C-alpha cells in the first residue's frame, strides 16, 4: 500500500496555521503513551505511507512517515539487511494498570481519560523517529538519530522542507534532519525519512551468565574496553545476557572467551522480552522509569526494581519513589530520568533555564505559533 498525502497534510497545516489550531500529530498510535499526553486536533499521518526508494547496495531506505515499521523491517530482511538501532514497536496493548491517564487531551478511542492502545495499532516510521527510541543494539550500533540521513517535513509555516538526503555524508547547512529524532513532532510534521541500514550479521548468539545485577556493571564496563563483537547486554534482575554478532569465527572465538550458557530462541528474548517489554519485569502497576546513564555509572541506591539494558546505559526502574529523588540521583550520576509508563506529573528531566530558553527559541524557529504537539515534551514547548 502506498499513498502520497503530502499535499493534503500541507493544506491541513496551512488551515491550522491560519486558524491557530493546535495539532496532535499521530501515526499508528503505538507510542501515544509516551510524553506528557496529546493535545490538539488529531493530524493523522498514517495514511501517508509507502517506501519511496530502497537501494540495498547504497545501504539507504527512504519511506513516508506513515509506513508501518514492520513493512520496512520485512523489506530489509529479504535483502539480508536491518535497521541497526533495533527500534521498539510497542504495538501490543499492555495491561491496563500501565495505561497512563492523560493530563489533558483527546481520548483516542472512547476510553474516558485512558490512552487506548489498540491491539491492531502499528508503529510507523515517522513515530519511531519522532520518539527517537532505540533497542538493545543501541550502544554498539548507534541510535535512531545516528541513522537518520535526511527528512522531508512540514514546518509551522506550512512549508514543505527537505534536509539532509540519501547520502552518507552531508554537511550542507545545519543538520536539521537528525534534530527531528526525539523531538516528538514538536518541530514539524515528518513526511519522509531516509535511513542508513546495514547488513545483518552473519552469526548471532546469546550467552547467559549467572551474576548479580550490581556486580555485572563492573564486568560490562570491562567488556566494553575489549574489542569484542558485543551487540546487546542486559541484566533482567536474575541473570546477565550477552549477545554476540558478526563473522562466525569472531562469534565463536568470543564465545569461548566469555563463557556462559547458550540461550535458545534468543531472537524472541531480545525482541519480545526486552525491546517490546514483554518481560515479567514490565508487568504490574508500579510506574516505569527510564534512566539513561553513562554506561559505567555505579549502581544507584534507589528503592525499587531494576532491569539493565544497553550494557548498563539504559536502566529500567519500577518504583513508587518521587520523581525528584529519581531525577536527582540520576543527574548526579551523569544521566537523566524520564517517566516512561504509568505515574503522574512531568515526564522528562527538567532542563536548566538557559537550555529551556534556547529550546523555546528553536521551537519558535520551526513552529512560531506552537501548533505541533504542544506540551508533549515540556509544558512550554
Amino acid at each position, binding site marked *: 500500500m502506498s499513498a502520497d498525502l503530502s499535499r493534503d497534510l500541507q493544506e491541513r497545516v496551512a488551515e491550522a496555521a491560519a486558524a491557530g489550531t493546535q495539532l496532535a500529530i499521530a501515526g499508528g498510535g503505538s507510542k501515544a503513551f509516551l510524553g506528557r499526553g496529546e493535545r490538539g486536533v488529531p493530524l493523522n499521518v498514517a495514511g501517508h505511507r509507502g517506501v519511496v526508494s530502497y537501494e*540495498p*547496495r*547504497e545501504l*539507504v531506505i527512504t519511506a513516508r512517515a506513515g509506513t508501518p515499521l514492520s513493512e520496512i523491517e520485512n523489506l530489509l530482511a529479504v535483502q539480508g539487511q536491518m535497521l541497526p538501532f533495533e527500534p521498539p514497536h510497542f504495538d501490543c496493548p499492555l495491561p491496563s494498570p500501565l495505561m497512563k491517564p492523560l493530563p489533558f487531551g483527546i481520548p483516542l478511542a472512547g476510553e474516558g481519560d485512558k490512552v487506548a492502545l489498540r491491539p491492531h495499532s502499528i508503529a510507523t516510521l515517522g513515530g519511531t523517529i519522532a520518539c527517537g527510541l532505540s533497542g538493545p543494539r543501541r*550502544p554498539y550500533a*548507534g*541510535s535512531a538519530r*545516528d541513522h537518520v540521513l535526511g527528512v522531508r517535513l512540514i*514546518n509551522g509555516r506550512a*512549508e514543505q*522542507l*527537505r*534536509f539532509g538526503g*540519501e*547520502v*552518507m*555524508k*552531508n*554537511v*550542507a*547547512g*545545519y*543538520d*536539521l534532519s*537528525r*534534530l527531528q529524532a526525539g523531538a516528538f513532532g514538536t518541530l514539524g510534521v515528518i513526511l519522509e525519512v531516509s535511513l542508513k541500514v546495514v*547488513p545483518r550479521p552473519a552469526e548471532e548468539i546469546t550467552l547467559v551468565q549467572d551474576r548479580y545485577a550490581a556486580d555485572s556493571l563492573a564486568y560490562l*564496563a570491562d567488556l566494553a*574496553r575489549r*574489542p569484542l*563483537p558485543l551487540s546487546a547486554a542486559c541484566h533482567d534482575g536474575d541473570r546477565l545476557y550477552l549477545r554476540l554478532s*558478526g*563473522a562466525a*569465527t*569472531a562469534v565463536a*572465538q568470543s564465545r569461548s572467551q566469555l563463557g556462559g550458557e547458550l540461550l535458545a530462541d534468543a531472537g524472541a528474548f531480545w525482541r519480545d522480552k526486552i525491546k517490546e517489554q514483554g518481560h515479567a519485569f514490565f508487568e504490574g502497576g508500579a510506574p516505569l522509569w527510564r534512566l*539513561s*546513564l*553513562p*554506561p*559505567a*555509572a555505579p549502581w544507584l541506591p534507589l528503592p525499587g526494581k531494576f532491569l539493565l539494558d*544497553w550494557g548498563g*546505559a539504559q536502566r529500567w526502574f519500577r518504583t513508587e519513589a518521587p520523581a525528584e529523588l529519581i531525577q536527582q540521583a540520576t543527574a548526579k550520576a*551523569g*544521566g*537523566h530520568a524520564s517517566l516512561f509508563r504509568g505515574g503522574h506529573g512531568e515526564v*522528562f528531566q527538567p*532542563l536548566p533555564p*538557559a*537550555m529551556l530558553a*534556547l*529550546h523555546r*527559541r*528553536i521551537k*519558535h*524557529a*520551526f513552529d512560531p505559533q506552537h501548533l505541533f504537539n504542544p506540551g508533549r*515534551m*515540556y509544558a512550554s514547548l
Partner: protein
Amino acid sequence: MSLDRASLINALRALLPEDAVLEQEEACRPYECDGLSAYRQLPYVVALPHSVDEARAVLKLCHEHRIPVVARGAGTGLSGGALPHAEGVLLSLARLNRILRIDPAGLTATVEPGVRNLAISEAAAPLGLYYAPDPSSQIACTIGGNVAENSGGVHCLKYGLTVHNVCAMKLLTIDGELLELGGTALDAPGYDLMALAIGSEGMLGVAVEITVRLLPVPERAQVALAAFDDVEKAGTAVGEIIAAGIIPAGLEMMDGPAIQAAEDFVHAGYPTDAAAILLCEVDGTNQEVSEHIARIRQVLEASGATEVRTARDEAERALFWKGRKAAFPAVGRISPDYYCMDGTIPRRHLPEVLRRTAELSREYGLPVANVFHAGDGNLHPLILFDANKPGELERTEELGGKILELCVEVGGTITGEHGVGIEKIKQMCVQFQPEELNQFRAVKQAFDPLELLNPGKGVPTPRHCSEYRALPHKHTHEHS
C-alpha cells in the same frame, strides 16, 4: 559597530594577557586564510584566549559592541570557514589545547577545542583505546574544527563521522552563556542539540570543551589493495563488497593521476599503471579479519581487479594508507595550485559522475585528479591549476561549481565533510529552496540574533541567491 579598531584593541588588552592579542600585520598574516588559500583577508585583530573565561570575555565584549567573531582552530579547513572578517575579531582556540581527562571506564576523553585530532588517540593509546574519526589532516586539525565541520575520515564508513563519536560539549553562545550539550549517557533530555551544533561551522556558538567517545583498538586490521584497468570497474567493485554483506572499516579509491602523484611523493608501492586503485580495510578479531579479507579478495577478483594485494605487515599497511592520506599534498607537488571539491553522491552514480567530470575537465582545459571515500560516495576531485595565470582561478571555480551542481543533480550534496564556508555559498542556492534557507536562518536567529558569529558563511542571504539565480547559465533543481 560602536568601537573603532584602536578602542577594540585596547578593550581586548584590558581583558586578556599581553600575548593574547595580535594586531601587527606580520603577526596577523598567518591567520589570513585557512586551507583554501584562494580566499584571503588580513584579520582586523586576533584574540588568542588561554582559558574558557578569557574566550567568554571576548565574546561578551563583541556582543556588547556588535563586533563579528570568527572562530579558528588550526586553519586546515577547505571551505574558507575560518576566513577572517574584515572588521571582526579572529578568535583562535589554538591555546585551549589541554586534554582534561580520559575516563578509561566510561570510554571518553574530555578535551579543550584546540587539541589536535591525533593527539587524542595518542593520549588514549596506552589504555588500548582510540578516537575513530581520522581526517587526513589529523596531525594538524583540531577537535574544535572537526566538531564545527562534522569532519569525516577514511574510517568513517564503519565508525561514523564526528557527529557519531562526540557525546558532549560546552558551547559558548555569542552573549557569553556557557551551555552544556549532550552528556556521557547515550542520550540527553530535550532536543538533540549535539546534532545541531556539530557541523554548524562556528555560526551558532564556540565549542570550548568537547567529550569524545573512545573505542578499543581492534585486535587486528588488514588492508587489501586492488588495481583496476578501468575506473568504472573499480566503482562497481565497491557496490559488490557492500552487497557481500561486509562493511569495511575504510574503502577508498584513487584514479590514475592521483595514484601517480601519491606514489611519487611517498613511494607506497602503488601500481602506477592502474586506472584506479581501491584500498579496502577490515578490522575486528583476528579470525574475523582473515574471514573478511578472503571474501573481499574473491569479490575484487570477480569484479575484474587486475591485481589484489594485502599488506605484508603493519609497516606496509601504514604505507598503503600514507599514500592515500598524503594524496592532497602529493597533488600539490605536481601542480602550482589545486582546488579540492567535496561532493557526495549516491554510489550507483559514480561511473556517470566520473565520466561527466572528465568531460568538464576537458571542456575547461584543467586536469582533474580524483581521490574519494568510495564507500560512502564522497568525492574529492582535485582541479589542477595555476593561480598566476590570469583568469585560471575563476575558471577553476566555475568548473568546481559545475561538478558540485552535477552532484546535486544525481541526488547528492555539495559538501560531504569540508563544509560550505565562504566557498560553496552560491551552490547552497542550488541545493536548497528559499523556504529551506529561511529555516536555516531562523535556527541561526535562535542562537545568534545579531548574526555576529561567522557572518557571511554557511547560509546565503536571499540576495546572494537571487543574484546567483539571475545568472544566465544557472538553473535550480526542483526536488522530486
